[in-house]
């Protein structure tokens, strides 16, 4: 191998800021539309795969494990209570479009009745250093008049941010590790 420069030479190159705007307008798939509408009504709806019986929340419109397409007939409601299965606390980084300024909790929640987790949830009503896997939580719903389908997208399978602002401790005893250890994500 040839010798490496230990430091690149100082540059007279000009850096040009080239800002580009790309707009994407996409229809939400039917499963995400039904998920969003139910959320506005205060219900969390997933889908049960008829083959493996797993319940996906949010509903994907298919089961990726059995490779079968799912439809409205497979929709099933799940609880708005569950358990934190894994989490981190994120120190926000500034970038274009970032609105977060304070460290925030990023938790996966296994809702009662669901087989898979709802990711990326904030946990409120408890200091960040007390958040733990096993913590039983319940949804903090926005007042009905304030609920929107804002923030839904076809990137990922939907989120709850327009209707549920966070999850908070439910006051129940922690769930045993066996209950959640296979659902870290």
């Amino acid at each position, binding site marked *: *191998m*040839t*010798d*490496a*420069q*230990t*430091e*690149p*030479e*100082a*540059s007279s*190159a000009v*850096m040009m800021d*080239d800002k*580009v705007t790309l707009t994407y307008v996409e229809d939400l798939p039917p499963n995400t539309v039904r998920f969003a509408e139910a959320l506005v009504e205060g219900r969390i709806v997933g889908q049960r795969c008829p083959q493996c019986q*797993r*319940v*996906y929340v949010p509903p994907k419109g298919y089961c*990726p*494990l059995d490779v079968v397409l799912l439809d409205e007939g497979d929709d099933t409601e799940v609880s708005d209570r569950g358990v934190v299965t*894994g*989490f*981190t*606390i*994120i*120190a*926000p*980084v500034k*970038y*274009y*479009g*970032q*609105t*977060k300024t304070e460290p*925030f909790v*990023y938790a*996966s929640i296994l809702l009662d009745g*669901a*087989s*898979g*987790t709802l*990711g*990326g949830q904030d946990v409120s009503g408890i200091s*960040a250093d007390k958040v733990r*896997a096993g913590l039983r939580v319940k949804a903090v719903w926005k007042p009905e008049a304030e609920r929107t389908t804002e923030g839904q997208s076809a*990137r990922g399978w939907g989120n709850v941010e327009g209707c549920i602002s966070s999850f908070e401790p439910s006051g129940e005893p922690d769930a045993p590790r066996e209950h959640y*250890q*296979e*659902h*870290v*994500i």
Partner: protein
Amino acid sequence: MAEPAAIIGFGQTKHAKARADLSMPGLCREAATRALEDAGLDWKDIDAVVIGKAPDAFEGVMQPELFLADALGSAGKPMIRVHTAGSVGGSTVIVAAHLVEAGIHARVLAVAWEKQSEGNAQWGLAGGRSGGIGAGGAFAPFIRSYIERTNAPEYIGWQVAVKDRLNALKNPYAHLRLPDISLEKVKESPMLWDPIHFLESCPSSDGAAAVVIGNADEARKAPRPPAWIIASAVRSEPTQFPGRDAVRPQAGVDCAHDLYRQAGITNPAQEIDAAELYVPFSWYEPMWLEGHDIAGPGEGWKMVDRGDTELTGSFPVNPSGGVLSSNPIGASGMLRLAEAANQVRGQAGEHQVEGARIALGQAYGGNAQYFSMAIFSSTLP
């Protein structure tokens, strides 16, 4: 039925936070010309070009390999652009190797790169939305789970962070040069994604890597020793599904087992002399040692604790300084495989593991769901 193939040349850029002295084509050429020189070849000798990089949102150019046609000598030739998230650098080597193993081409140039300083990787990773979790946000919960499962002491992560940065001081191409790094400094550095501290995390780098892969005839003609690709494998699993073990992904286990089977390896910890593993956050060193069955369950952190993974240890990991010291995302996977190859070629200079004959290169990506791995040997079995 596959023909033998070998890495006969390797080049890389000096990785840095921003290579403002080079354009994107310039960055790629710095690595590619070094690889060609190392292989004793010229641009015209190359039959096909395989290019890998991570999301194009990082630089703001859609399918940049198209405009790099001239710069990479691929005009007039077959060109393939691979994209498999963080594992891409590794899968790019493997796609290029397949072209030679299939007897389609004799000499293939593979280039992988990222010029992150020209975009905003944080914005890119966030998909342009607020509340992005960055590179580490997805993995922090897995790391926390590993620590809970194994009761590993908290200093293990700091230890890996120190080891890799000290190794990097022996690698003139590495981005981070932190001669004063210490366990204390790592522990005191700001928490980014609990429990990952700033100094346990990879940098954001501009950089490129390139390898020339040749068939047996080319390997014999090459001016420097070849690294024979005696095994290669890729595995993927879905991003998120009920019951997924994201801490010890099955895809990583299966990929490793396929690899060992191809190479005739039954005791990887003993039979592999050096490993370059994709460790962007320090805890991934013990996690991959276990995740690829180099160490038993709960034993990975003990290998670290004992110093086994030091440059002079029984199982050196990341003698180059690894992803923790340089992380041009698209190139990092290729750097792992190529640095492993360089070990068995005896070309690793100051970070050479003495007597390395068999080396492992590994890259992973996505939600710890994509794996690309290869084993290199100084001799053809």
